[in-house]
């Protein structure tokens, strides 16, 4: 057991500021009466300052306006050690990076459940920390800090630099999540040519890959990170959702799911979503998940941001590759109906949704060439030059769509696939007869 009163540097207790276990705050009214309440997160600003969100704490706000002193109690998640922070209110911020970071953090949980206007962040109270001490306890040893060796970062960086195409780059990015952050569940979404939607192009560690799933920029946790170009870290999903539900006074309303569900863990507790930016442009997001509360800490967020930036920059500098493809056909088996809807370029295989958008348009174009000209070998270049596809002038867009298309085909059927044959070239492999049907029209072939 330790004695009281020893000053503890804030930087020594980073996990207390993760919002994994609620903190509590005590203030004093003009009549000398204390007021005590729980609060979800205390943000560490620097070695001498913390920030508290001003949401529902009417009495706390009234009290600190007259008496700037407050005491916050925090619990270290891994050890249960308790710390008391004596604070003096300094100022309130209603805009700026700190405010935006805290606002996004609050909005993220609501967004996850499709709720809006649950929390209205009125301001962020920045307080000076006068003193921080550990409460007496039986086991005063702290947890070992998590350290990632620089050599691992260097190795990751070298792999990024060596990646020859987007496919390899995405694989390196997802492997990096495990190697650097110990995270086995991650996915990459890229922003589409309109800049308004994200689509999943690669994932690892999920029962269902979610490749091709889409989300609007601004929608949900992932969409919010993309919209605000700000990383979002959720450390205790279960607790945050219950907090949101309590605040809202009812359970969340239903929301329309995307046609393909996003990659997701059934019992996700921690999430880290990092926008991938290159040359100030949003390329996509890198999303990491864990079923353990507190799996991602502030240092992990830094590391994941480095990862995401490196990958985004590498994507931006990939040359216009010449990809992929080709194949053969087949027999007297029952033909598969491939139905294409021009309005959203969606493709259905025997009435099962496969893909839509540019990837759908590309597939339709390939299948028509296959049916009409018996062609199986294609190049990225010819697709880029094909005006009927209306590809935007984004050099990495087509390659990403081809990866998406290839993965969706691998997941959804065993008679249709795309194989890379050389840089920028690919082969369409068809092993069952196909009947192509355009929209609500008659069979094309």
């Amino acid at each position: 057991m330790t004695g009281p009163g020893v000053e503890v540097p804030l930087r020594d207790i980073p996990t207390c500021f993760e919002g994994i276990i609620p903190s509590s705050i005590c203030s004093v009214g003009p009549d000398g009466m204390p007021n005590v309440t729980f609060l979800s997160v205390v943000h560490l600003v620097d070695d001498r300052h913390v920030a508290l969100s001003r949401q529902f704490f009417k009495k706390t706000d009234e009290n600190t306006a007259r008496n700037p002193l407050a005491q916050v109690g925090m619990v270290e998640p891994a050890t249960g050690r308790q710390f008391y922070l004596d604070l003096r209110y300094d100022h309130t911020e209603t805009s700026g990076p700190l405010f935006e970071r805290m606002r996004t953090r609050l909005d993220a949980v609501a967004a996850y459940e499709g709720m809006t206007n649950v929390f209205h962040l009125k301001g962020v109270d920045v307080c000076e920390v006068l003193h921080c001490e550990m409460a007496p306890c039986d086991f005063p040893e702290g947890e070992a800090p998590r350290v990632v060796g620089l050599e691992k970062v260097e190795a990751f960086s070298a792999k990024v630099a060596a990646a020859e195409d987007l496919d390899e780059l995405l694989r390196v990015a997802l492997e990096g999540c495990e190697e650097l952050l110990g995270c086995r569940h991650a996915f990459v979404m890229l922003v589409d040519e309109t800049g308004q939607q994200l689509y999943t192009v690669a994932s690892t560690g999920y029962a269902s890959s979610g490749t091709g799933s889409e989300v609007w920029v601004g929608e949900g946790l992932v969409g919010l990170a993309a919209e605000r170009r700000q990383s979002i870290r959720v450390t205790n999903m279960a607790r945050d959702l219950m907090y949101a539900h309590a605040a809202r006074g009812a359970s969340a309303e239903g929301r329309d799911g995307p046609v393909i569900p996003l990659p997701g863990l059934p019992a996700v507790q921690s999430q880290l979503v990092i926008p991938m930016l290159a040359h100030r442009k949003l390329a996509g997001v890198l999303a990491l998940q864990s079923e353990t509360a507190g799996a991602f800490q502030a240092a992990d967020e830094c590391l994941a941001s480095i990862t995401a930036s490196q990958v985004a920059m590498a994507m931006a500098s990939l040359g216009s590759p010449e990809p992929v493809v080709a194949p053969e056909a087949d027999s007297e088996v029952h033909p598969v109906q491939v139905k294409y809807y021009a309005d959203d370029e969606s493709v259905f295989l025997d009435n099962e949704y496969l893909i839509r958008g540019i990837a759908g348009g590309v597939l339709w174009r390939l299948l028509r060439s296959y049916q009409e000209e018996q062609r199986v070998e294609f190049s990225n270049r010819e697709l880029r030059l094909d005006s009927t596809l209306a590809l935007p002038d984004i050099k990495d867009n087509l390659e990403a769509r081809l990866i998406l298309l290839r993965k969706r085909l691998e997941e959804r059927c065993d008679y249709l696939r795309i194989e890379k044959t050389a840089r920028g070239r690919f082969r369409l492999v068809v092993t069952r007869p196909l009947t192509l049907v355009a929209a609500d029209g008659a069979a094309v072939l």
Partner: protein
Amino acid sequence: MYVINDELKTFIESGVAVVIGTADDEGRPHMAYAWGPRVHEDRVQVSLFIDAARSATPLRDLDANGRIAVTLADPVSYRSVQLKGRAAGHGEPVAGERAWVERHRDAFMASTALVGDAPSTIRNLWMEDVIRVDFEVEQAFNQTPGPGAGVPL
């Protein structure tokens, strides 16, 4: 004086997280976690228990002015209530009260396990020796996060 009804008594004595606030006469606030809240038969007096090794400052404040605030929160639903009142005394736990504290700690841990707290947290959350604090409730407030927070019950 605030009279605690059956429903609120049940809530107070469930597996809630309990934190107390006190203040010295210079207006310096202090908080401490507490265990085993129990509503007396008169429905006005409440006892709770704080870890003896962590009790020096709160007890000094209570001896000086008696003012106490106690917030009780359900770790799962986040329903929260704040009681405010005057300390009526403190002392060693009497027969049966340690078991009462144990019962509350068990219920609390069952609730926090539902929201994913690591079991390793337990070892320092509380300590064996506790001090009983009795107080008379004068006011009660809804403290559940949301627009209704702070409204008197």
